[in-house]
């Protein structure tokens, strides 16, 4: 699946997007966050406090307990500050 990162998540991870191939034990957004946080220092910093990271699956807001099966694109970003 494709992963895209925004704002400080993007800066800490060090890239705006990438292809991910998580193991089959990773079934939810929360699992993916936990797995990503073990992929290196930048990821560890970005996902240090999972509760502060929001996610979207195929461009729709998703809770951390949402299953990722079938999703083509996952996004991680801080709480929104537009408007």
């Amino acid at each position, binding site marked *: 699946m494709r992963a895209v990162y925004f*704002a*400080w998540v993007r800066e800490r991870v060090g890239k705006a997007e990438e292809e991910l191939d998580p193991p089959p034990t990773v079934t939810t957004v929360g699992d993916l966050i936990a797995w990503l946080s073990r992929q290196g220092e930048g990821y560890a910093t970005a996902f240090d406090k999972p509760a502060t990271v929001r996610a979207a699956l195929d461009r729709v*807001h998703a809770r951390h307990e949402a299953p990722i099966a079938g999703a083509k694109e996952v996004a991680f970003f801080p*709480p*929104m500050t537009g408007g």
Partner: protein
Amino acid sequence: MAKIRVQHEAFDAGAEGDSLSRGRRDVGAVVSFVGYCRDEGGRLAALELEHYPGMAEEEIARVVGEAERRWPLLGVTVIHRTGRIAAGEPIVYVAVAAAHRREAFDAAEMLMDYLKTRAPFWKRAVRADGVVEGWVEAKGEDDASAARWGAAEQ
């Protein structure tokens, strides 16, 4: 029916508002809101806005759809700018046309409250001395404002 734009370019709020009522006889009220970049007492030169292309437009459309289900609206325009916006310039525009003022006021306010908490945009401040500050943190009061409109998908 709704017009939704995510763009760097400035917009003409007057012309946008006029276009919601021009040539129509059913519109009794147009309420519009313009959000500007403040300089915070001279401290800030600009804001930089990052967004999630694609999802930004789609999420605004979902929010507009919720407003349209809630009130009998006759037209909606939402424009959100991205990139570097200098202090004093407009950032966001919301306008709602309806038969009566109450639904137009309420829908415009709900749209802004939801836009702030759900549309995927992130701001950081550029100080007057040119230094780019860290990302603006989301405010709990914005969540509280959005919550006034009832449970939303989030």
